[in-house]
């Protein structure tokens, strides 16, 4: 257990450090989301009433795109510089480092989005009652998104292709999450109990945590064969 735990924390810390070096500032994901949120009133409508209706969906679509597009690099750079090969031939279990990497990915995309979401809600005139469910839903849902994107990233790692293929693969799997995620917010806005869809998101996350690292490990072993 301590050995496998080392695999988790080593790769968790490493990927966080890399993200930190790449982005320079930890705040930039938040700035990114805020900027995109600024576009919505500009491009669609500045009226608070209409914005309010758009808010749940918009926030979730942004979460989805952010996870998807940043997931492309999850294994590719490791594949290109030989780190992935080192990982594959290390005696430790593959699952823990993968879990560490995906968690780090969530910390650099899903978590900042969750934290920034009240600000975006404010900009999109989201009713105050929806803030808590929004954050809870995002926290759980973006976790699922990260794990699913990681499967896609593993499947495409050895193909010198861009993010389009990844999108093609992962997007259909994302659809349920976006539906339940925005439902959590919509329910709370409509004054209904929002624990139902939230529980489903939680259940999906639990399943993803249990199965996805295994699937990713299998895929990486199966696919990097030349």
């Amino acid at each position, binding site marked *: 257990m301590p050995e496998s735990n080392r695999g988790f924390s080593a790769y968790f810390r490493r990927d966080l450090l890399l993200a930190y070096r790449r982005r320079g500032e930890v705040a930039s994901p938040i700035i990114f989301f805020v900027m995109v949120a600024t576009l919505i009133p500009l491009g669609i409508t500045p009226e608070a009433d209409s914005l309010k209706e758009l808010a749940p969906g918009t926030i979730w679509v942004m979460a989805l795109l952010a996870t998807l597009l940043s997931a492309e690099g999850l294994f590719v750079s490791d594949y290109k*510089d030989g*780190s992935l*090969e080192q990982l594959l031939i290390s005696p430790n279990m593959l699952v823990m480092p993968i879990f560490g990497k995906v968690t780090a990915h969530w910390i650099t995309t899903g978590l900042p989005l969750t934290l920034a979401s009240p600000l975006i809600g404010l900009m999109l005139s989201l009713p105050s009652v929806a803030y808590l469910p929004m954050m809870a839903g995002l926290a759980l849902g973006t976790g699922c998104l990260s794990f699913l994107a990681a499967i896609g990233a593993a499947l495409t790692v050895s193909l010198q292709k861009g993010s389009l293929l990844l999108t093609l693969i992962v997007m259909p799997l994302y659809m349920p999450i976006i539906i339940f995620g925005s439902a959590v917010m919509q329910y709370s806005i409509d004054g209904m109990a929002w624990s139902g869809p939230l529980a489903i998101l939680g259940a999906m996350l639990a399943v993803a945590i249990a199965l996805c690292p295994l699937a990713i490990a299998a895929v990486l072993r199966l696919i990097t064969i030349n």
Partner: protein
Amino acid sequence: MVNSSLLTVNDLRFERDDIPVINGACLTLNVGEILQIEGPNGSGKTTLLRILTTALQPSGGEILYRGQILSECRFDYLSNILFLGHQSALKLTLTAEENLSWTTSELPGSVSIMEALEQVGLRGYSDVPCHKLSEGQQRRVALARLLVTNAEVWFLDEPFSALDKQGVQFVEQCMERHIKGGGAVMLTTHQPIGMEPVRRYSLVGSSVGGGF
């Protein structure tokens, strides 16, 4: 069955898209030995090393580690090898020290990271991001892994590339120290090696070209 042969390879074959790359290689690696894999460009040296480090699946043949079939002692085997490839597995945005910190084993016999960096001639560079290092300096960071781990079998793919003369000598000294301590080294290089004793194994590539 006690055997001084660490690694025995019998009739190893490997195909890519149905084109044979390695065609029945047979070789042994003994304790205290340096084995140099020879062959022209594209003859399959890197492929061979990657098969022996289990990164690639052979299409046929068997690999024995201390007389046992590899798949039966996989964990044991992988805990005892070290592979250094063409690609250095360095993260260019991280510093030399950070790059090494993921591979260190805190076992006795291995050296601390700072000490290792000093030995490879990078004193004062430990906190410089690797993309600010010269080609040879990056290579030295990768080679510092030889010092901070204590694997038994080293697989080195062109370890001398980009190194200056002292660098080459240093790696040779490392290898010598390693085999004296009961390890073994399998390496590929196109440069002449300035040390003895080195046993050679020639891969005759099935390469299409060879027009030089």
